[in-house]
């Protein structure tokens, strides 16, 4: 369907039938109302047929004014005014907007001539609000976003009962006509960021907005960077906390996720539980995540550089242990580490793609049986298994899977740099990474804020006690609402 083609065509029952010709779910029925004949059109499955019968047809057939209407225009006006029990009623004059209404779960009644009266009778066949599957909740609310936009906005609205919460809707995708909502707290959020999000969403030219990548890659500043620039979450509580911090939320119909812009590096290392636990524990765990990040990123490269180039920097007993472990291994250290990194990725991917019980089996078989066998067969040294396992485990502590994936890519690059030039290579690659991160900017906010300027340095690394905690993030620089 090409929307532009029909945008100027007036809405008629025949035109609509022609538009949906060949669609088995398109239903139309002619009904006699007094002296007139009206045509009811809807898309089966998207509407609740019982609601049409109860709130639209029954009042029409029982309404004395409708039965006595003189012509089609009078009938249409009467229907639109108070002829039915349906809360959502609208007049549509164009064929395209009438079709869009049908696609959104409305039914249309044509009274002859041009123009239609549409009624909101959506189907309630939707997934119930469940617990988050990917983001585990230890201490917090256990509801999660679903595929229905209106349910998601309801979940947000229930947590932020503030008239300042604004929900603006756009329709994106020429074929999918996906409803996308921009959610923000008026007065809390920097208006510049809101405007920028609106502008970028309107610029999206896609046939269908059915996957997260379409949204993410088309609205972030540097889509080629492996580092995530939009925060995504399936937890409404995390979504709302970020709104309070001054971020702009994006919800899309059909996606059980909420997106938040701008994403900053520090924000990807925070979890909602930080605000649920004791502030000292939360601060310690945040610091632990930063240490894990460094371990995950640098440990394999550091091992290669130390074992191949800088033997003098290792403690004597550790070096002796590495020498003993590597005595019968036939491969150079670099190949050994690279092969183990690839094997780890394979195990991880296999575990993710297979159904849950099989995935666990693969992980156990891979990690324990194959790993142990490889060590016993002297194909790899135990030290490399330890290094790769530690690095991998440290990577799993990243709250954001996108951040963990970016680290995995850079881990390979750092190992190659270490193979090439030892610590010098590692430092050079580290500087390259730092340069890349420091040049990233997201909706006008530096990605490395507050480490590369801006306020809230300690806020990024620790969590203040509840008495001194303010949700608004200084780096986002919104004018705070006086309450």
């Amino acid at each position, binding site marked *: 369907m090409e929307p532009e083609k029909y945008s100027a065509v007036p809405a008629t029952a025949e035109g609509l039938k022609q538009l949906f010709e060949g669609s088995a779910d398109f239903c139309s029925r002619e009904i006699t109302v007094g002296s007139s004949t009206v045509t009811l059109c809807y898309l089966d499955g998207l509407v609740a047929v019982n609601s049409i019968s109860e709130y639209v047809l029954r009042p029409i057939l029982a309404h004395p004014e409708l039965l006595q209407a003189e012509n089609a225009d009078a009938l249409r006006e009467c229907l639109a005014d108070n002829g039915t029990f349906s809360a959502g009623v609208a007049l549509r004059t164009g064929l395209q907007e009438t079709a869009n209404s049908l696609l959104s779960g409305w039914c249309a009644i044509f009274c002859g001539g041009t123009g239609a009266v549409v009624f909101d009778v959506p189907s309630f066949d939707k997934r119930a609000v469940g617990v988050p599957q990917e983001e585990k909740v230890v201490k917090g609310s256990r509801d999660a976003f679903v595929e229905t936009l209106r349910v998601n906005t309801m979940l947000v609205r229930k947590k932020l009962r503030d008239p300042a919460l604004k929900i603006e809707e756009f329709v994106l995708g020429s074929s999918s006509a996906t409803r996308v909502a921009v959610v923000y707290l008026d007065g809390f959020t920097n208006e510049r960021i809101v405007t920028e999000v609106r502008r970028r969403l309107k610029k999206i030219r896609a046939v269908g907005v059915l996957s997260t990548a379409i949204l993410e890659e088309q609205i972030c500043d540097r889509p*080629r960077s492996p580092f995530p620039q939009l925060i995504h979450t399936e937890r409404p509580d995390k979504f709302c906390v970020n709104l309070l911090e001054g971020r702009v939320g994006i919800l899309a119909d059909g996606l059980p996720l909420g997106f938040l812009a701008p994403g900053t590096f520090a924000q990807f290392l925070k979890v909602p539980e930080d605000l649920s636990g004791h502030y000292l524990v939360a601060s310690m765990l945040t610091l632990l995540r930063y240490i894990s990040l460094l371990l995950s990123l640098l440990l394999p490269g550091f091992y290669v550089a130390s*074992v*191949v*180039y800088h*033997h*003098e920097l290792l403690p*004597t*007993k550790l*070096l*002796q*242990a*590495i*020498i*003993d472990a*590597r*005595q019968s*291994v036939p491969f*150079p*250290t*670099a*190949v050994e580490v*690279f092969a183990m990194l690839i094997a780890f990725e394979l195990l991880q991917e296999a575990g993710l793609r297979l159904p849950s019980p099989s995935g666990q089996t693969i992980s156990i078989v891979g990690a324990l049986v194959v790993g142990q066998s490889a060590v016993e067969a002297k194909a790899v040294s135990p030290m490399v298994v330890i290094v790769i396992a530690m690095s991998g485990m440290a990577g799993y502590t990243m709250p954001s899977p996108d951040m963990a994936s970016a680290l995995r890519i850079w881990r390979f690059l750092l190992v*190659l740099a270490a*193979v*090439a*030039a*030892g610590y010098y290579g590692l430092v050079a690659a580290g500087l390259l990474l730092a340069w890349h991160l420091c040049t990233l900017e997201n909706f006008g906010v530096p990605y490395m804020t507050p480490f590369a300027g801006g306020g809230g340095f300690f806020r990024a690394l620790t969590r203040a006690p509840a008495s001194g905690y303010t949700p608004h993030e200084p780096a986002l620089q919104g004018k705070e609402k006086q309450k």
Partner: protein
Amino acid sequence: MKRCLLMFAAAAVFLLSGCSMASSGGTEVEGLMLIRTVGIDTQSGANAEKPARITVCTGVGLNQTPPKILSREDVSIAAAVENLKYNATGLEPFFSHTQQVLLGEAAAKNGFSAAMDWMLRSMEIRLDTELYAVRGNTAEAVLNGSEGTTTSVSDMLSLLRDTASATGEGYIYNCGEIASSLLSNGNALILAVELEETKVGAEGAGSGEVKPAGYGVICGDTLVGYTEPALSYAVCFLTNHLDAYTMQVTTEDGEYTLMLKNASAEYSPVFSAEGKLSRVEVALKTTCTVLQMESGANLVDEAVRETVAAAVQKVLEEDAASVIRSAVDMDVDFLDIGSACRRKAPGKYDAMPADWDEQFPVTEYSISADVQVERTYDLIHPMERQEDSTF
């Protein structure tokens, strides 16, 4: 993007094939022989053409493989080290983890400066490598003393390092400290060790045991003598390197075993009205804890403790005097009393009519020890609860 992927693949092939390591100097770790101890000897007589002899020893492997011991000789220490590369093990000697260097007695007497020169210039030997003199023997003999056993001299010396200053057997000086002392004072102390024959097991395997044997005194570039092993603790005391020491003293009540702690020595020069150095007062201070006693005396009684303190004080003063006397006999201020006096009274020290080297052997040293015996818990004579006591 395709270009990036191609570059990544090319880099991976180049780097993982081993080409990069060959071009940039990387070495696989299993190709290294970790040298833990180096022995340096000087040969004379029939072997005078190749006077430098070097012996290296690895530690015991983690899977209890016996230590490897290699020896080479050449015209210089550096040349002998180079020769070590060509050995039957096929491993490259790696000196960056060397923890100890042993100097044979002949090398300490005749080639000390050459050995120090090699150690200080070496890119691999660290300044914190410990230096020992082998008393009355060669370094090679000590290193070979444990050949074929699962205990290496390296491990014995490591154990000695961990315990020596806590037991008063001696403070172990490293290359950096000795070089610094030679540069500033012209002399240095070096811990002496000797190989003690201790037949162990049915076959007599593991026959060597390395023991401390006093201090070697280096003056200029030669070993001029040793201090008595029994006085090592006193040397440590006088050089402020004593962490703890277990001492036996005898009083009228019987024998006491005490632990000396918090030991410190202070040197105070006393000048005459004309500015001449009259004497140097050596003040020793320590606290003792009774570890064991035979007498059953009441240690809660202050008079008893004072008696014990007096006995310790007497031993300390006598031993300190013996050490200072041996320094005077060698005419080497290895206790660095001159620098201590200068720090105490820099103006008067610099204004002395005669310089310290002349003064040192003729100066009078008055030694006093301040010993406090700590009141220890006594099961036999528990402390009586006093009315005004707060506990």
